C-alpha cells in the first residue's frame, strides 16, 4: 500500500495542483481536501499548500484558519497527524497556533520570487528525514509575507529545542528573525516553511532542480514504514 497524502484547497490556494503532482512524483497518492469539509478522508498526512487563500486579506492565513477543514487538521495534528505547511500553509499554521510566532510582510516591502539557498537544520521531522543534517539545498521562494517573527523567548526556545528546521543561507529574502525559513512543532509532525519544495521536483520546469523531492519521499517512507 502506498501513503495517501491530503492536499487542502482553500479559496485562493494556488499550488494545490503542483503539490499533488509532487506527491505523485514521489510515489504517494494525493488526495484533494476541500476547505468546507471537516472530513479528512482518512489521509495519512496533510499538506497545506501555497497561494493567497482569501487573497491574503486581513493577514496571510488569518481567514483560512477558521475554515471547517482546519478544525480537523488542528485536532488531528495534535494527535500526531503529519502536517506540512508551505508558504501560505505555513502562515495558516502560525495563525492557527499549531506553530509559534507569526508571519509579517517582507522587510523590503516587495513580493520576492527567487531560487533560495537553505540549510536543513533538523532531519528528525516527519518531512525531512531524507535530508542529511546541515545539507544545503536550493528551493524556490515566492512570497509577500515571509518575515518570520516571534519574541526572543520563543526564538531561544526554538533554537534550544532544535526546532528551527530550515535557515536561509547567504541571503535573507524577507527579514525573518534569525534567518528562519521553517520550523517544526515539538513532536516533529508539524512543519512549516516559506520556500516551495513542490516547485523543485522536476529537472525541466520550476527551478530546474529536484532539491524539494525529499520532503515528499521522507513522509512517504515514514508512512509506509509505519503501516
Amino acid at each position, binding site marked *: 500500500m502506498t501513503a495517501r497524502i491530503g492536499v487542502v484547497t482553500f479559496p485562493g490556494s494556488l499550488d494545490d495542483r503542483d503539490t499533488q503532482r509532487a506527491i505523485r512524483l514521489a510515489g504517494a497518492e494525493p488526495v484533494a481536501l476541500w476547505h468546507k469539509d471537516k472530513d479528512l478522508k482518512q489521509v495519512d498526512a496533510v499538506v497545506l499548500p501555497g497561494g493567497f487563500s482569501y487573497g491574503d486579506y*486581513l493577514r496571510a492565513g488569518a*481567514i483560512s484558519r477558521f475554515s471547517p477543514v482546519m478544525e480537523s487538521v488542528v485536532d488531528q495534528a495534535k494527535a500526531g497527524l503529519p502536517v506540512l505547511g508551505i508558504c501560505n500553509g505555513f502562515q495558516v499554521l502560525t495563525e492557527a497556533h499549531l506553530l509559534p510566532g507569526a508571519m509579517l510582510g517582507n522587510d523590503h516591502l516587495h513580493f520576492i520570487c527567487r531560487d533560495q539557498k537553505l540549510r536543513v537544520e533538523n532531519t528528525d521531522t516527519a518531512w525531512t528525514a531524507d535530508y542529511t543534517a546541515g545539507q544545503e539545498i536550493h528551493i524556490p521562494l515566492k512570497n509577500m509575507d515571509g518575515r518570520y517573527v516571534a519574541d526572543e523567548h520563543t526564538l531561544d526556545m526554538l533554537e534550544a529545542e532544535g526546532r528551527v528546521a530550515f535557515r536561509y543561507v547567504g541571503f535573507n529574502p524577507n527579514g525573518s528573525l534569525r534567518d528562519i525559513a521553517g520550523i517544526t512543532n515539538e513532536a516533529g509532525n508539524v512543519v512549516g516553511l516559506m520556500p516551495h519544495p513542490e516547485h523543485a521536483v522536476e529537472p525541466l520546469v520550476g527551478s530546474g532542480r529536484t532539491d524539494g523531492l525529499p520532503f515528499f519521499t521522507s513522509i512517504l517512507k515514514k508512512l509506509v514504514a509505519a503501516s
Partner: protein
Amino acid sequence: MARVVVDVMLKPEILDPQGQAVQRALPRLGFEGISDVRQGKRFELEVDGPVDDAVLARIHELADTFLANTVIENFTVKVEEPAVGAEK
C-alpha cells in the same frame, strides 16, 4: 513630542476587497449584526515639538500628496488624545 494620526480609508464608493473579506468571514466566526466592514490604514506620526496649525497644515499636505491617493482614498488628520476605548 506629540502624536498626529492620519487615517486613510478607501472612498465609500470604491470597492474594498479586504473589508469585504473580513465581513464575509464574520458569520462563520459566529458574529452577527455587523452590516459593513471597511479596512483602511492608520499612520501614527511622532512630531518633534508642538503641533501648531502650521504643522497640522503640513501634515495635511503630506497626507494629501503622499500618504493617500485621493483618486481613491479619503483621509483625516487628528492630534491624538488620550485613548478613550479599551486597550490591549
